[in-house]
């Protein structure tokens, strides 16, 4: 192990151990603060909080799931529930809402176990404080997977306290009473007490032991599994009242935009602010220092313009004259880089999995097939660009922002402002989309620094769309080279996959040139095919920009390449792609991911979450049936299939396309079958999958960020195009594999729908036209004029 990087203050310490990067949480001890719930009866008087990391987390054995996340989980009802005298139940949501519906779905779980009537529930958003709430990093399709059970226990514990209070008041055994829709009933005497009436007495009772809790029988769920509730924030959204990060308004607030170095690693050489200061409304121009590597979540530096409104700040920025030093990445060029990746993919690289004897098997094969696939950088481009507002009063910094990482934001701001962490509060607003961009709080730190520079005056920092596209933490760019050997029956006997892509770890340790276990574990190393001779290699790739998480991350290029290649092999052996894929997956079986070389397994226990090829087969069979796979279509129309396992969820997709005589592509229909285990809020699961289908079409047909002379070429939505309604799939049919069980492990939902869309689409194009797409985006590759 090499020495830790120089970031001892940070929560997630990062270091290089051999070739793979590990991010390990080191939690620090600070005093708990009672926040947010003053005035509510149930929360009063119980400062002794149960903390997962002290009472429940296994300390000796390997940690998985929520246990392995920074600050784990908390299931104390006093942290998450407050009941007022009028019966209003307030439930805290500690995960960020970015469109996945978590402010509806998680509080709904609490409300169900609590037997609260949803009409009397209000949801309050937790500020960043993981010691109090447990992990808040809203990413990795984890919120429901990790907090379904803790939130059930929160609700059940609060319900038990109300039942105990009622039983005590009536002087009857607790077994004789039960909760039903905001009341405790005593059926023997017909007496009832409302939650509001019981709140004060209940608050004086001890929190029941976790082991003693009686969770509901799933048959008795009112909300869980039903999908019947409206979106909690829906009314505010349709009336324009919903508050996103960009909407914050404070008294005496100023508005800022920043001109950042166009090239990553660059800095300001000199600047002239005279014209900018002449723009009406401009108040001040401030230089922000650039940060040395690693990129981490540090601001990029540059010149900030502070003004009386956003428009004046933007105009002021246009009037700045800045000379930039491009730094070491001034030659980054996407065309040249693609050639570099291809060259690397054509030579042997670091072996990350090696089964059987690939060389002999390739030698002995009757037929060899090889193909290379390219997938470019992408920007998350949430509709709400990054934005944050900060103010500092008497050494206390308050931030309002759209962040997927409230605790990390808080820690980083504290470090940059040299304040103790308990002097920094991060209020989490709604997020106008996140997709991984808002997991990186560089913009939050910028806002804090600007407020500091203005003596603590409130400053709202807005990123324009140009800023967002130029300075994202970009999805990686990759070349995937696959080669297979087929036997006389056309059955693959050898599989060689070289995956080359700059790694996210380079953002934290710039010298990293190999994909991390978390990236390889996204469908490439853990490919569940029954092939005896299989080798996965990962040649080096150097990063020249900030690489970061994008919804479903490395699953995008991996699934694109693998599922396209499988269809190419099927064609080469003259077989139906679906039958061929099922044969490749082989019999239904549970595979220990460690036997595939996957030490990560999405952070989940290999025992609880093995790779289940039976489930993968089932989604393929379900989607084929629903999409009527095999139906005969006229020329220019075709069906394409792809399946992918990610975020411990199994997904298969059939895309139907039409390609007209000019090469114009349209998508009349997508069928998507999903096995994500228990479906807590099927309605929001469906909406996530609909969104994944459209984002998948968007990135496959149009999505590309490219660099020239170190800088991003794309400026705004004319050059970084996103799918619009006229080109979107006309119909999306979601097929959730039914389950009524709730004690089997949950899978992720937000991300796993995305990876199989691009390959299914390209396979459909092949079926329709015979043309094979190996480079994303498709853009005008089909055009015939």
């Amino acid at each position: 192990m090499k020495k830790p990087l120089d970031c001892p203050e940070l929560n997630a310490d990062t270091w290089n151990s051999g070739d793979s990067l590990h991010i390990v949480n080191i939690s620090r001890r600070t005093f708990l603060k009672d926040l947010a719930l003053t005035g509510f009866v149930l929360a009063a008087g119980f400062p002794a909080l149960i903390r997962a990391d002290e009472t429940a987390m296994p300390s000796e054995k390997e940690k998985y799931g929520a246990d392995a996340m920074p600050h784990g989980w908390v299931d104390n009802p006093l942290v998450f529930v407050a009941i007022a005298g009028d019966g209003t139940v307030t439930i805290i949501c500690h995960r960020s809402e970015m469109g996945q519906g978590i402010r509806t779905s998680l509080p709904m779980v609490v409300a169900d176990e609590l037997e609260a009537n949803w009409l009397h529930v209000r949801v309050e958003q937790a500020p960043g404080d993981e010691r109090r709430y447990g992990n808040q990093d809203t990413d990795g399709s984890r919120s429901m997977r990790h907090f379904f059970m803790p939130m059930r226990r929160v609700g059940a514990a609060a319900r038990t306290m109300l039942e105990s209070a009622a039983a005590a008041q009536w002087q009857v055994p607790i077994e004789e009473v039960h909760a039903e829709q905001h009341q405790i009933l005593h059926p023997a005497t017909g007496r009832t007490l409302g939650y509001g009436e019981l709140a004060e007495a209940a608050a004086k009772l001890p929190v029941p032991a976790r082991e003693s809790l009686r969770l509901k029988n799933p048959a008795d769920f009112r909300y869980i599994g039903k999908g019947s509730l409206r979106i909690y924030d829906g009314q505010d959204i349709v009336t324009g009242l919903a508050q996103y990060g960009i909407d914050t308004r404070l008294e005496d607030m100023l508005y800022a935009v920043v001109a950042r170095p166009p090239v990553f690693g660059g800095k300001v050489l000199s600047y002239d602010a005279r014209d900018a200061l002449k723009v009406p409304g401009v108040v001040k121009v401030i230089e922000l220092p650039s940060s040395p590597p690693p990129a981490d979540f540090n601001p990029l530096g540059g010149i900030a313009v502070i003004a009386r409104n956003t428009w004046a700040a933007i105009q002021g920025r246009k009037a700045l004259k800045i000379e930039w030093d491009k730094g070491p990445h001034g030659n980054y060029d996407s065309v040249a880089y693609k050639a570099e990746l291809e060259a690397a993919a054509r030579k042997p690289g670091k072996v990350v999995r090696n089964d059987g004897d690939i060389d002999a098997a390739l030698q002995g094969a009757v037929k060899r097939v090889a193909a290379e696939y390219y997938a470019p950088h992408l920007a998350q481009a949430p509709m709400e660009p990054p934005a944050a507002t900060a103010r500092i009063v008497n050494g206390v910094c308050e931030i309002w922002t759209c962040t997927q990482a409230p605790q990390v934001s808080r820690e980083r701001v504290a470090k940059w402002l040299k304040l103790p962490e308990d002097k920094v509060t991060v209020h989490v607003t709604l997020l106008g989309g996140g997709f991984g961009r808002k997991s990186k709080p560089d913009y939050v730190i910028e806002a804090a620094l600007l407020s500091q520079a203005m003596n603590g005056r409130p400053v709202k920092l807005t990123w324009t769309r140009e800023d967002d596209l130029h300075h994202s933490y970009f999805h990686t760019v990759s070349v995937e080279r696959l080669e297979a050997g087929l036997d006389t029956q056309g059955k693959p006997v050898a599989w060689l996959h070289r995956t080359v892509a700059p790694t996210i770890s380079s953002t934290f340790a710039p010298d990293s040139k190999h994909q991390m276990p978390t990236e390889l574990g996204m469908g490439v190393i853990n490919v569940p095919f029954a092939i005896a001779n299989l080798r996965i290699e990962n040649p080096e790739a150097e990063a020249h920009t900030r690489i970061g998480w994008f919804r479903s991350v490395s699953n995008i290029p991996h699934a694109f390449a693998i599922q396209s290649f499988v269809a190419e092999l099927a064609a080469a052996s003259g077989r139906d792609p679906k039958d061929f894929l099922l044969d490749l997956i082989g019999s239904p079986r549970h595979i220990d991911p460690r036997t595939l070389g996957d030490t990560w397994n999405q952070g989940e226990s290999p025992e609880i979450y093995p790779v289940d090829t039976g489930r993968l087969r089932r989604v393929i069979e379900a989607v084929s049936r629903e999409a009527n796979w095999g139906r005969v279509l006229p020329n220019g129309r075709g069906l394409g299939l792809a399946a992918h396992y990610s975020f411990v969820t199994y997904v298969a997709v059939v895309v139907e396309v039409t390609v007209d005589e000019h090469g114009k592509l349209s998508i009349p229909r997508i069928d998507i079958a999903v096995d994500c285990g228990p479906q807590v809020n099927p309605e929001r699961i469906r909406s996530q999958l609909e969104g994944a289908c459209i984002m998948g079409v968007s990135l496959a047909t149009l999505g590309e960020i490219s660099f020239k002379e170190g800088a991003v070429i794309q400026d705004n939505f004319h050059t970084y195009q996103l799918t619009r309604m006229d080109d979107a799939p006309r119909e999306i049919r979601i097929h959730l594999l039914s389950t009524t069980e709730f004690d089997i492990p949950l899978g992720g939902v937000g991300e796993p729908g995305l990876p199989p869309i691009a390959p299914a689409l390209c396979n459909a194009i092949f079926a329709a036209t015979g043309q094979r797409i190996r480079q994303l985006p498709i853009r005008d590759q089909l055009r015939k004029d």
Partner: protein
Amino acid sequence: MITLNINGKPRQIDLSTDTPLLWVLRDHLGLTGTKFGCGISLCGACTVHLDGEPTRACVTPISTAVGKKIVTIEAINQDATGQRVQEAWLALRVPQCGYCQSGQIMAATALLKQNPKPTDTDIDTAMSGNICRCGTYCRIRAAIKQVAGLTEVRP
């Protein structure tokens, strides 16, 4: 000083007249329901009605809005069609993150007021200026059809 008629009320604005309406609404009047998405008329997040016409506030200098009736998302419920659009949006649970939905609702309301029974092509034409990164297009189409009293036809 100029006067703008916003949501039925006169508002005095003391800013240079080339300031886009978007920033006047958001920064000066606190009407933050109208969103910023691109700033150059590419995404529709900032759509408002000017005399009933769907208009991109980000590229509309306030000088050109003088004397016109400006309606924003905050007041669209005062219009019967607008209210039905909002109700359909809630019933079909159209929003995901919701950020684009102010603009979508303004565009859909304008469409339905001018064309109460739009075809799919009409819907495409009216709505394709509004980007939704979350991908709610199928539900937007379904909600427009619900307001129009048309049922979705499945092939």
